[in-house]
């Protein structure tokens, strides 16, 4: 594995250390954010390092008195990490409103271990509503005002523009990495792509982009030379389980594309720059491929999934989501039906943060055999 990918892995595995060292180096502030609807560009423009709060994947026994077991394991894991002090170094915590599970994790976090700056940003659910853009822009303005008040200085438009450039560049580089996976024999595996994408959520974007450029050069030189196996797509919600992707790929498959909020959904949409830098940033979050909580009428999500599936010439799909994730659970039959009508095999798996993914082995093996039969 190349040095850049090694670094991505290190950061993902030791994300707290990265953030603490980053802070020590420049004396900047670090904010945690949940879900993918917080306009990070604004934080970055303020000199803040935004780090996404993802799974800790360690067994814990601290959340039971705070959040019911019928809430998704991911939201419980998030709260558990806060209660165990894993994120004590954060100066702020924010969430862009999506589902009730993460909302409670955020509110209980705020209730028990309040950060110096704590903010729940409302994001319209009806993104197609003619008024959603203006409403969200207003929410974003108020968020920026609150942040400026806390910082004690304003965030000038030039800094927003600069942050937008930095973020867009990083999005383009991740796109390029994904693009390579369209090849017949993708030199970059699904687990490598996932590590690179996750690392982007934890790292200073400029540093990450430099590593990405190196990584893209290195990939160009090396070919892994192995039979890629079945080409698969991952579809679903919060899934940062790299072990799972490694397992799938060790069984004779290649994950070539995904529609996950921890994967392509995170970076797919660029900010289309315009006269008002803040409005351009806000619009980006309205136009990004949606989470099921942001899709209420027409099925934009399904259309997007279908396009990715075909563009990346996938042959089967693994549908994953957290247990108890009702928005994904209710979308599931529609997605299954879509694939079924096209005779595309799917495997549905429910995740728990601490279940060893090895227990899925038999089901994945059986699924891959089926995919093979379908495509022969």
């Amino acid at each position, binding site marked *: 594995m190349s040095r850049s990918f090694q670094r991505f892995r290190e950061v993902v595995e030791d994300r707290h250390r990265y953030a603490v060292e980053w802070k020590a180096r420049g004396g900047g502030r670090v904010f945690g954010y949940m879900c993918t609807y917080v306009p990070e560009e604004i934080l970055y423009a303020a000199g803040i390092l935004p780090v996404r709060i993802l799974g800790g994947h360690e067994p814990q026994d601290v959340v039971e008195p705070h959040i019911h077991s019928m809430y998704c394991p991911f939201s419980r894991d998030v709260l558990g990490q806060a209660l165990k002090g894993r994120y004590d170094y954060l100066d702020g915590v924010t969430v862009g409103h999506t589902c009730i599970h993460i909302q409670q994790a955020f*509110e209980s976090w705020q209730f028990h271990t309040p950060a110096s700056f704590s903010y729940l940003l409302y994001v319209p*659910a009806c993104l197609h509503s003619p008024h959603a853009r203006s409403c969200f822009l207003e929410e974003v303005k108020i968020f920026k005002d609150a942040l400026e008040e806390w910082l004690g200085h304003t965030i000038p438009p030039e800094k927003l523009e600069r942050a937008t450039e930095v973020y867009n560049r990083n999005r383009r580089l991740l796109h390029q990495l994904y693009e390579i996976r369209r090849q017949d024999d993708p030199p970059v595996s699904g687990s490598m792509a996932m590590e690179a994408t996750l690392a982007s959520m934890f790292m200073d974007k400029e540093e990450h982009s430099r590593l990405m450029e190196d990584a893209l050069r290195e990939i160009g030189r090396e070919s892994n030379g192995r039979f890629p196996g079945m080409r698969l797509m991952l579809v679903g919600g919060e899934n940062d389980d790299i072990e799972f992707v490694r397992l799938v790929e060790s069984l004779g498959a290649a994950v070539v594309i995904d529609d996950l909020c921890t994967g392509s959904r995170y970076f797919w949409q660029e900010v289309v720059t315009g006269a008002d830098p803040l409005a351009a940033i806000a619009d980006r979050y309205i136009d990004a491929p949606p989470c099921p909580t942001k899709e209420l009428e027409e099925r934009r999500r399904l259309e997007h999934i279908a396009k990715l599936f075909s563009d990346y010439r996938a042959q089967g799909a693994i549908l994953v989501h957290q247990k108890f994730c009702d928005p994904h659970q209710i979308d599931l039959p529609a997605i299954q039906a879509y694939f079924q009508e096209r005779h595309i095999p799917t495997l549905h798996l429910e995740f728990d943060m601490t279940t060893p993914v090895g227990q899925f082995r038999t089901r994945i093996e059986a699924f891959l055999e089926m995919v093979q039969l379908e495509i022969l």
Partner: protein
Amino acid sequence: MTTQERKRTLRSSYMGREIFKNYWAEAHACKEQGRPVAWCSGNVPVELVHANGVYPLYPESYSAMIAAQKMAREKCERAEGWGYSMDTCSYFRVSLGMEDDDPKTLPFGGLPRPDILITTRLICMTQYKWWQVLSDMWDVPIYVVDAPYLGLGGQAQIQRHQEDYFIDQLKGLVAFLEEHTGKRMDQDRFLEALALSDRAAELWYEIMGLRKSRPCPVATREMVGNVFPLVTLLGTRPTVDFFQALRDEIKEMVESGQGAVPDERIRLALDNIPPWHDLAFLSSVEERGAIFAIENYTCYAWGGRIDLSDPWRGYARKCLDTWPAYSIEERIQIYIRQAQEYHLDGYVFHANRSCKPLSTAQQEMQRVLLERVGVPGLLLEGDHADPRGFSPAHAQSQLEAFLEMLGA
């Protein structure tokens, strides 16, 4: 005794029962007469639906009735067979699971198919995903009333642009309704619907206030039935008439010192939607001189006063101010006040697998209520419609132990 046959404390509750029966029967009559029928999810701004002459039908209320008639399990299992997880809301599964049923086997001949679908983000997220499924299944036009999540309480107030956004959503709903009726909304009818809704809420709050009395004139089990018009028929005259009769009778009881339970000793509050499949569970405490005197389901979920001097803004504020919009701290503050005003000895928190918006932060509330005002709480796992999510024997023994601890 079955749910239907049980004797009610109040004469006027039978009036509510009639409203309930007529409501379902009239839906079929509307359909036959060609009047548009809308399937609405809970907290849809129903006054607008009535004001536009569209008949609002509530599948969630229907699912609750199916559960009360002990018919929910098979419906849930059928929906699960179609791929909908057992973790999703049981109102949703029950409703979907009736799709292939012969309407004759269902109470009131089932629900007529909707001409339009209306839902909202106001209180939960299952509703709008559910309505999306319905819209797909039947190819019926849908309108979603989006609403800001507010986290109200303390410094957090509804902001002007949030109100504006919601008003735009309401006006969008009017346009949607007008499109399907082919008629412009009559402004006078709209204002009258708001006035009737406000009057109903005023009476309802008065009724809730009367329940602070010792002894308590009417218990939770009866009031979760009487709340029905506040859910479905806000903005209509019969609702006001019914609540007026209810208020008068309750007031009379309070003035003459009559209580629903003879020798009332322990006063409880219920948090969350009741387990509709086992309402007898709620009245079982009465044998021990205990009463469920109040419940958040009837106080903070439906209805609300409207500032009629500024109708659209007043209406928007009323709709936005609802329990799921409250922060954890606000919920705690409400319960601290409630515990004192209603002289409560304990809280029963129904940890309802099927309603996450109302189950949020129950443990936080349970702990803080004990710490700050010394009122203990019992957390019971259950489900509002799926009987498989609730173990009656286990719940009963937990409840009895709790009552013993409270000295019943």
